[in-house]
């Protein structure tokens, strides 16, 4: 009562002033939080990309600054038979390995999703090919495919399948087959573990309900599991396609792009031209040629993922 009376009598109102706290403004804070990411992205992605772009329209070589030549480097690629082979190789390599990685990874994920002894241990163990440094494991594979000391040849010979050694890395087609096998071996764990994570988000009740509804195991997979797993599958495929398309390590260690350029991919050919032969601008042009193709793949997949997720 007393308080009300005194305020109504004098009407003295004190307006409290806010203290100056710049970080409490969401605008300022947003910029501050974005800064590290923007610096990193700019320094390590945008800047090199722009430099690559600039490099590709000059005739720079190692030790020669070079001058602006327009799209000459790209024109040259268009009539370069090795580059044609590279485009085909990369697409084929990506296509075949992705199909197999998906099929084997999904199969493995479905098996690992069951309950069995040493489940946790097995799941961790499966990741090994993914964890070991690729260069090291690829060296091991290189020995296994070695024309003289190949353990694969030895096994095939001992079991009577072959009579003379197969020159795995010396024949164009077999060399491509070899790097495809190694890529699948390395990539399956990623698919398996990611798809397993996706499978675990699907309530087991759904499969039980479908079983009671009369769906057989294959039908349950086709009508329930597969459509519910599809968003995860698409994201995993997207990552895998990007990585495989730009693969370098496996081919570089196994074949170096040979024999006779039969296994060159974009990355290895760009490296050979730019670093190996010193034609920096041409190497940059090969790398950049990857960009529109990857962009197209990514756009198509992202659109598809969005459609699937909306369902």
């Amino acid at each position: 009562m007393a308080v009300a009376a005194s305020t109504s009598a004098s009407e003295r109102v004190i307006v409290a002033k806010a203290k100056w706290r710049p970080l409490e403004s969401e605008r300022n804070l947003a910029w501050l939080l974005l800064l590290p990411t923007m610096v990193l992205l700019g320094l390590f992605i945008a800047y090199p990309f722009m430099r690559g772009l600039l490099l590709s329209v000059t005739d720079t070589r190692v030790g020669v600054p070079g001058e602006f030549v327009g799209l000459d480097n790209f024109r040259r690629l268009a009539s370069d038979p090795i580059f044609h082979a590279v485009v085909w190789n990369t697409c084929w390599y990506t296509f075949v390995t992705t199909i197999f990685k998906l099929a084997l990874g999904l199969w493995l994920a479905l098996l690992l999703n069951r309950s069995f002894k040493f489940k946790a241990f097995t799941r961790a163990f499966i990741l090994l090919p993914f964890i070991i440094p690729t260069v090291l494991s690829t060296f091991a594979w290189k020995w296994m495919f070695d024309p003289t000391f190949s353990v694969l040849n030895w096994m095939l010979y001992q079991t009577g399948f072959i009579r003379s050694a197969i020159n795995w890395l010396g024949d164009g087609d077999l060399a491509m087959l070899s790097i495809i096998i190694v890529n699948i071996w390395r990539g399956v764990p990623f698919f398996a573990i990611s798809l397993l994570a996706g499978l675990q988000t699907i309530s087991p009740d759904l499969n039980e309900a479908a079983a009671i509804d009369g769906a057989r195991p294959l039908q349950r997979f086709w009508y329930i599991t597969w459509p519910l797993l599809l968003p995860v599958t698409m994201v995993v495929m997207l990552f895998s396609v990007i990585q495989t398309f730009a693969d370098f390590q496996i081919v570089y260690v196994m074949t170096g792009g040979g024999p006779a350029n039969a296994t060159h991919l974009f990355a290895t050919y760009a490296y050979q031209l730019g670093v190996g032969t010193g034609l920096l601008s041409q190497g940059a042009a090969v790398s950049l040629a990857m960009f529109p193709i990857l962009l197209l793949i990514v756009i198509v997949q992202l659109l598809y993922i969005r459609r699937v997720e909306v369902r």
Partner: protein
Amino acid sequence: MATVSIRGVHKRYDDFHAVKGVSLEIKDKEFVVLVGPSGCGKTTTLRMVAGLETITEGNILIGDTVVNELPPMDRDIAMVFQNYALYPHMSVYDNMAFGLKMRKFDKAEIKRRVAEAADILGIKDHLHRKPRQLSGGQRQRVALGRAIVRNPQVFLFDEPLSNLDAKLRVQMRVELKKLHQRLGTTAVYVTHDQVEAMTLGDRVVVMKDGLIQQVGEPLELYNNPANKYVGGFIGSPAMNFADVTIAQNGSGLMASNSAMNIAVPEHLAAPLGAHVGKPATFGIRPEDLRLSDGSEPAHQTFEAVVEVAEQLGSEILLDVSCGPSSMVASVDPTVRVKPGEKIRLAFNPKRAHFFDGKTEMAVRG
């Protein structure tokens, strides 16, 4: 439609004996409710009937067929899950049609049956929607619809109402009852809610620790609980218990502890005779207690101290302490008492229960 027979069924997991020899005969068109606390084996029993769990020991028959080895799809049952288990990527129509499609019904028949079920359940306008666009109650109806379109021999319900809010639960409970009256399909219903069990079940099966405690019609369980557990589980507020010792008093028996000294009702005197000098538990339901008006014999009353009075409008629940035991009495809404007040409560001797102090089994007249 069919009977369901559960005969000496056990379920053992690696180191857990979940169901310890359950036997139950469910009649054709009967609505049987399995009720008990979580971990009592009721859901496991239901899942064994469904074929989602293997049976460690014993037999389950649907009709005259032993179904132990049959997969769920060949048992001609339908199940409604606690979380509905609707296929999230399918429309309501496709959810309900799925079982018929899998069983290769022709399209016109599927359409007819789904439309009929949707009509019964009042979800006709939602057939093109996805489950996530529906409310909890609507999803529940779709789950029911998916079960009834197949016209199975047996319905299995696994706590179907527990994800609904209280008001909707009561409403769906009534609808379930109506649906069963209309379809007449044999139903096995699992719940931990004794009110659901009492209101829905033609017969109620109370389970605890993997064993059946009592099977009977709801009122039978309420009036004649077979043991202390059933007495305390069925009914809300729960039955009051007081630990007492039985003593001879002339021709009759007295039950007493530090705070009460009451006469054992005549109809229980003979069976309780063997308990003289031994501990027993006196059980009385809140509504069988009333405020004493002094007209009752003294040994049909006992003194208590009011702790809380809960005014519910139609009745007052008095939380009282009576020596070592806490009790609840449901008394007339006009009664005025204050916390801390000493009162005398009279009990209805015809509705008094006594349980053996060791076995906790009911002593019956």
